[in-house]
């Protein structure tokens, strides 16, 4: 059974249909990339999977380990193991990254029937994770995303991902606004999380990110549908030729 299965998914925003039948299956251990021009529904897809309000699913299914994801509230989906790395991480003034991480981690642990993490254990864990990601430990003392540079915000997303150890991680345009060094740090973080029981859905506009996070499958999302699928070479082809032919074909 696929880890995450998206079946004929239709979704609209304010009455306008954006996703027009997306079908996709992520097996455990796989990395799938979704590419496509702006406005074809890439972010809609990630938001619908994560359960953001304002999107109406009119048809289709999303299953995590066979469980109906669409029947769950957003926080339940997160605790079930769906993680969304945001394109624009949100500032939470006055809340330290550390406090935020701890609250999130404990929410997950409680849901799993585990004991809440104690302060010492938590500090040790964060230290280990920040070191592994090459991040300054002091970052966790700052208010989450407040005054963070673009690179710091994305690194904070990856730190959260490594702390929460999701089943399925969705990276929504994680490469946007990153210079090459930041891109490398973030990619290294993601790659270190690749595991046989975890899957990734990497949404990106550019092929560049896929030099660092090498996908098993590449899909083209155009006009609300998967217009083509292939291996990692498909990304290179798209880079060279653009999306025009898929847009025309789909239209």
């Amino acid at each position, binding site marked *: 059974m696929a880890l995450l299965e998206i079946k004929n998914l239709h979704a609209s925003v304010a009455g306008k249909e954006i996703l027009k039948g997306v079908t996709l299956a992520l097996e455990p251990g796989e990395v799938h990339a979704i590419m496509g021009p702006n406005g074809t529904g890439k972010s809609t897809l990630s938001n619908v999977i994560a359960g953001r309000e304002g999107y109406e699913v009119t048809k289709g299914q999303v299953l995590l380990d066979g469980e109906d994801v669409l029947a769950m509230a957003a926080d339940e989906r997160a605790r079930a193991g769906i993680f969304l790395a945001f394109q624009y991480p949100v500032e939470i003034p006055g809340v330290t990254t550390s406090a935020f991480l701890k*609250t999130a981690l404990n929410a997950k642990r409680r849901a799993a029937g585990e004991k809440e993490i104690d302060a010492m254990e938590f500090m040790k864990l964060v230290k280990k994770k920040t070191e592994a990601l090459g991040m300054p430990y002091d970052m966790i003392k700052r208010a989450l995303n407040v005054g963070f540079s673009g690179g710091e915000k994305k690194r904070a997303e990856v730190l959260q991902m490594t702390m929460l150890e999701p089943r399925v991680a969705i990276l929504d345009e994680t490469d946007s606004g990153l210079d090459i060094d930041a891109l490398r740090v973030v990619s290294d973080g993601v790659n270190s999380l690749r595991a046989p029981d975890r899957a990734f859905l990497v949404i990106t506009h550019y092929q560049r990110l896929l030099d660092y996070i090498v996908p098993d499958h590449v899909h083209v999302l155009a006009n609300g549908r998967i217009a083509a699928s292939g291996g990692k070479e498909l990304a290179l082809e798209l880079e060279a030729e653009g999306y025009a032919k898929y847009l025309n074909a789909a239209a």
Partner: protein
Amino acid sequence: MAANQETAAAVKNVEQYKYGFVTDIESDMAPKGLSEDIVRFISAKKGEPEWMLEWRLKAYRYWLTLADEEPTWAKLIYPKIDYQASYYYAAPKQKLASMDEVDPKLLETYKKLGIPLAEQAILAGVAVDAVFDSVSVATTYKKKLEEMGVIFKPISEAVHSHPELVKKYLGSVVPYTDNFYATLNCAVFTDGSFVYIPKGLRCPMELSTYFRINEKNTGQFERTLIVADEGSYVSYLEGCTAPQRDENQLHAAVVELIALDDAEIKYSTVQNWYPGDADGRGGIYNFVTKRGACRGKNSKIMWTQVETGSAITWKYPSCILQGDNSVGEFYSVAITNNRQQADTGTKMIHLGANTRSKIISKGISAGHADNTYRGLVRIGAKADKSRNYTQCDSLLIGDKCGAHTVPYIESRNPSAVTEHEATTSKISDDQLFYCLQRGMTQEEAVSLIVNGFCKEVLQTLPMEFAVEAQKLVSISLEGSVG
């Protein structure tokens, strides 16, 4: 942030106001209503000296002339209060000498409130002067404090044991003519705390009082007087909870602080009176006059308040900065939910040279509540080079509540500098979704975001209070989203 998670767990169990219970202790009550006889009755009950009674009567007679001067300028809507429909005196019957003699029912009440009196005193190093209804029933750590020369006792006792101090300072910051509610308090106050810190002493423990309204229809008129002599320091904590009932209850306390040369007073409050139900029925009317006088040079007074309860809050803890180089600070978190209304802020009156004041106010509104910051910064003609910094932030949850900021600045000295910053924001859907996507529940998310918003104020509280305050913030906002 462990407190946040604890809160979230607690919140789930809390369907109604957590402290909504009534302890059944037979009360020794004065007849209903207010008259000169009642004032005399209260004074007689306390066995007060003649001068105290005279002061009360003076206040009462003055109050009668104020009949038409009940303040109406605050942004508060409530039915006219019938002052003859209230009881002005209720006290537990037994007079107690020690903790051992405290009525077990009373101790049970404290337990429900999460205040294991004796244990807390020992564990936290907090001396607790517990006010139950109007009479202090227990005072712990008295001896240790006494040895250091600290006087910390019910004001009704201080009237007898230290009449010279009480006479000198009572009404010296908030005179009996001050305002409608303060005047009423002067006439009928039943008890409260008296604190005196001797010269040069840094009081090594936080002094704390827990107030509790218990008797039905009993107006609460607490009176607190704190004097910090030259070069001394004291931190005083006040916390409140009240049982649930339908009638509105009047609470008109007066707190006076006096800091002499080089003295510092830190006064922290967590106010959690019963706020009324979701439709605005019941709840405490809280009309409080709190004022501190930085009478000496280089003195400092710092108010921190976390106001989460009461149906109506009318409260402006203020500083009169009389001594040169004196400092006044006001840190406030005011949370209103459902139909609660709060009109709260501060006054910083700069009289001496080089006086400095700082105001940090965080107002949070949810449900149908209204929350007003009202503040006055006045710089007198002689307050050369004085400075004020004011920051007022409002946070709205939902679209049916209101936040209002009414700052007054009056400067009569061109060398003074005043700064005012204000923001109003909402908890955004983006912030909420972000937290939910990390697995937090709505309640945890709101609690986290709001606690972040209030952090600057909460971190000025003493440690054990800060934890309690964080929990209160969350409980107060229960059900405000989704």
